[in-house]
């Protein structure tokens, strides 16, 4: 029983961190109509900055600076995207892939084969209650992510920014007709996505992970299925999808031995298996809406 509860807690913690990334995808999709395949390298940038700056600025200071930097880089990416000649989905998505390739090339060079510590204040300490042991980092991630997610949904629901986001059309052409306000809104979406990504990697690179290395950014890829499962563009869906993925991953890791028939390293592919399963049953995602137009 305790194993199960531990697994659920770990899963929710992981899922809430994924949610930070997935919510970023959601706002970018609503605002710009594309998927940001550069999220992993932007995230990695954030992690690298925290790793480099935490000794000088302390963990939280470094994180703040990193979040600002990733927000800025995301905005730059958005501006670069504006320069693309063809505005169709595939072209924009490919541009984000190009951006990712470039940024990742530079970051890989910077990190090399090092494994960096992010200097988080929780280290490898654990929390115990009622016979359940959970890493402090997990508790912290639940708390921090929880606050940020709550703030996000409150803003989405009750502020003018949120209203504009909810009302924003996915039609990129119509967006062009709507002028400056629209463009500023779009950039705000990118900035928020970038900032959230930095916070996400701060937790993903913490215990029980060894630290930050070249491949840590790839964890962001698990958030893609999360966003898709929930239905692209739907924040609640992104949250549900992320939590689902987090718990599934934790379950796969915890019960790995019982599932050894399916091979080792199941937790790595758990997000994708869940996504395929969901898409087979509901192609529009769990909370996505089916269009009236049949085509």
């Amino acid at each position, binding site marked *: 029983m305790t194993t199960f509860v531990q697994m659920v807690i770990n899963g929710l913690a992981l899922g809430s961190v994924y949610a930070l990334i997935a919510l970023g995808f959601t706002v970018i999709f609503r605002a710009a109509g594309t998927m940001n395949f550069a999220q992993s390298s932007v995230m990695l940038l954030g992690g690298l900055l925290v790793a480099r700056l935490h000794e000088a600025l302390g963990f939280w200071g470094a994180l703040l600076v990193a979040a600002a930097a990733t927000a800025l880089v995301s905005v730059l990416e958005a501006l670069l995207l504006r320069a693309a000649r063809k505005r169709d989905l595939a072209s924009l998505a490919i541009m984000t892939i190009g951006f990712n390739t470039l940024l990742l090339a530079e970051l890989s060079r910077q990190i090399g084969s090092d494994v960096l510590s992010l200097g988080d204040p929780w280290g490898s300490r654990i929390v115990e209650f009622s016979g359940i042991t959970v890493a402090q980092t997990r508790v912290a991630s639940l708390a921090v992510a929880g606050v940020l997610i709550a703030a996000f949904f409150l803003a989405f629901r009750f502020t003018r920014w949120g209203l504009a986001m909810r009302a924003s059309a996915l039609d990129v052409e119509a967006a062009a007709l709507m002028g400056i306000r629209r463009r500023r809104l779009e950039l705000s979406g990118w900035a928020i996505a970038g900032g959230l990504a930095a916070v996400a990697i701060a937790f993903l690179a913490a215990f029980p992970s060894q630290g930050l290395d070249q491949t840590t950014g790839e964890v962001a890829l698990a958030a893609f299925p999360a966003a898709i499962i929930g239905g692209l563009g739907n924040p609640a869906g992104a949250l549900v999808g992320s939590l689902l993925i987090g718990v599934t991953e934790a379950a796969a890791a915890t019960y790995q031995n019982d599932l050894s028939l399916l091979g080792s390293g199941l937790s790595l592919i758990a997000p994708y298996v869940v996504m395929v399963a969901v898409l087979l049953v509901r192609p529009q995602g769990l909370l996505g809406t089916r269009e*009236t*137009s*049949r*085509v």
Partner: protein
Amino acid sequence: MTAPPLVVDRLTVRFAGLVALDDVSLTVAPGQIHGLIGPNGAGKSSFFNVISGVYRAAAGSVRFGDAELTSLRPDRIATHGVARTFQNIVLTKGSVTENLMLGRHSITRAGFVATALSLPWAVSEQARHRVRAGEIAEFVGLGDYVDAPVDVLPYGIRKRVELARALCMEPRLLLLDEPVAGMNTAERVAMSHTISDIRAVLGISILLVEHDMGLVMRLADEVTVLDFGKRIAGGTPDAVQRDPEVIRAYLGTGRDA
């Protein structure tokens, strides 16, 4: 070859609370030119979209002869001989002939394997249908333009390509969505002749949505009037023009688009 009748019975279409079509019934008799008119927002486009399978009907039925079209996908409906044009022309990149050949899709059979391997029957099928597409192009007045890329053609010619492409499907029922929108007078007259030729020579039933009242009244054998998704009048052009309900809906004018 006469087309079967199109019988639409109590058709209803809803979008998240909005009723686009409310209990609409009409019949297009074989070989008839049937006009569908109504103020903007009356539901004419929705009507076309349901018939061609783009929208799902909430209630009612669409029958074309013996076939029940109501819940079929658009590409299935095409095989029953129902073709349509679009208000905002949707042509693919390429030459006029390429676009017309797309219209031949539902009556040709060459699949991926046969085409990839350049099997003789697939090659000759293409050739045969190219010839036919050329004939249809001539019929519609596009003979000079068959090899021209569609992007550089004037609007009026593109409208004709749209029409010719629909004809290439060898339809028995043709749904024309504002075929003369945006055309000048001369072009309208020419198109009007083409449309009546289509019925006269090819025997195709035509359901025509248009705002050009003069054109509709001249061409149509029968007219149905929609307003706010409901059928408010129907009958011969003369009868409809005098119908007080229709006059009220249009606020007293038989205005041109």
